[in-house]
């Protein structure tokens, strides 16, 4: 995995958090954005395919004056078997050059499929069959992303409410093989991991113990909610205590990690309240200081200065 700068604690941008992001105080060190919300995608093969939103770009430029911005895309659908979206990768390359993201990421899943000659977007990340066939699909694609974009590339472990049965590999084997063979890092979403464990009756610690934590470039934490007997990765609240416990255990064991990000959906911001969100961010910063800065690492101010020029 390529080396990541240690930039600390981040807040995932949502429109209702705009004032918080523009007035962060000391509660967080960087901002993570879904770049896809700042452009319009007219579809594969069209020219221009992507149209950037000038207001969004101006906002990102303002944020970058104070602190780094990291990109967490939703558009690649890297696991889609019917096509690899090079045009999306090229759009990300342009944005990585424009905004100098210290790293960028997407999801280890697929949401685009082809049916009856048309592309279908399910709008949610679907699980991949964990086996050699899928690795053979993914590894060259990850390498192609890395060939085109110099910034380190991470893939996020997926949340799934059903799994693809009869997998050849367990989740840790699959992730370790993918990252080791392709060179990408892991965006370890602890709330996804916790959600899967609750819904499928597995043990989160077993998976955490089996993942090679040297591959972890970033951690996500979030809150969720119950619906119809399932626990949802709804990004609907503050971080639940079991996820804090997972983080306490994991963070000191991730030597290559660049940052930890708190996620909440915009529609929940008012109900949860900015003060509680800031409270979780401060708690994350205390953990980061204890487990990452305490080990002799220093917040990468060099990168910050470089990124805001």
């Amino acid at each position, binding site marked *: 995995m390529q080396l990541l700068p240690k930039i600390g604690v981040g807040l995932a941008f949502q429109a209702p958090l705009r004032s918080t992001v523009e007035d962060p105080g000391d509660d967080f060190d960087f901002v993570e954005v879904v770049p896809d919300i700042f452009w319009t995608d007219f579809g594969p093969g069209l020219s221009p395919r992507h149209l950037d939103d000038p207001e969004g770009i101006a906002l990102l430029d303002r944020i970058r004056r104070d602190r780094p911005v990291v990109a967490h895309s939703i558009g690649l659908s890297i696991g889609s078997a019917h096509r690899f979206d090079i045009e999306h990768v090229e759009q990300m390359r342009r944005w990585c050059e424009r905004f100098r993201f210290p790293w960028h990421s997407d999801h280890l899943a697929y949401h685009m499929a082809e049916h009856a000659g048309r*592309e279908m977007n*399910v*709008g*949610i990340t*679907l699980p991949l069959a964990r086996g050699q066939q899928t690795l053979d699909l993914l590894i060259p694609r990850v390498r192609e992303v890395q060939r085109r974009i110099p910034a380190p590339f991470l893939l996020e472990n997926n949340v799934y409410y059903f799994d*693809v049965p009869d997998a050849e590999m367990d989740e840790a084997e699959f992730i370790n093989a993918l990252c080791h063979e392709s060179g990408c890092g892991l965006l370890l979403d602890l709330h996804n991991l916790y959600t899967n464990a609750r819904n499928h009756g597995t043990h989160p610690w077993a998976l955490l113990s089996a993942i090679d934590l040297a591959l972890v470039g970033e951690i996500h934490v979030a809150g969720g909610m119950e619906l119809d007997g*399932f626990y*949802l990765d709804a990004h609907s609240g503050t971080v639940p205590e079991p996820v804090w416990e997972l983080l306490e255990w994991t963070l000191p064991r991730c030597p290559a990690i660049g940052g930890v990000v708190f996620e909440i959906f915009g529609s929940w911001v008012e109900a949860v309240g900015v003060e509680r969100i800031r409270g979780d961010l401060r708690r994350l910063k205390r953990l980061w200081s204890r487990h990452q800065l305490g080990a002799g690492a220093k917040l990468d101010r060099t990168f910050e200065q470089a990124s805001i020029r």
Partner: protein
Amino acid sequence: MSLVRFQACMARLITDPDFRERVRSGHLEELAGDLTALERARLCRIASDRGLDINRTLHKGFRLGKLRAMLPLTCEALGPGRLTREAAAFWAQHPPTSFYFISEALEFCDFLAARRLRGVYLDEVIAYERAALALEQPGANEPIEHAVRFRHEPAMLLACLAARRRPRAIPRRDCTAIGTRGEDGRAHWRLVDDG
């Protein structure tokens, strides 16, 4: 090739409840062809998985949320029950294609208009919101003008829906709203009384 088909079938289990029901009840004709035996077995098990219900709920919520965000007045004019029914009928004919839902919202307007639904104000609201969306969509250049015919006082009608109130007894006014795209990318409207 079979992985392409497998993923498409898995996606359809979420987007197409009738397809899921056929697979769940053992009508596997649509799984014939180039799928492997393992892929067919996996799809059959997934079709019966309760977790698929959650995915279906999330998928519908995501899609409906986009329509509500882009067509708030039309959704309000339809009311929650009819919106759900019409969206389901629309989705049965239009699989989701993109994260960018402007084209889906425009198609939904056309679908509703073609249905000639009952409602004193509905056709005026749909036509207005469709025109506004077409004018404001990113990259829109042509046409430069959209004309929308109203039979009722537009300002009162639209304000009522924007305030999430059911419009009642809106005064009659035969007029045409002419919409143009301003330099700010927003739709700008002027009213011309008919006759």
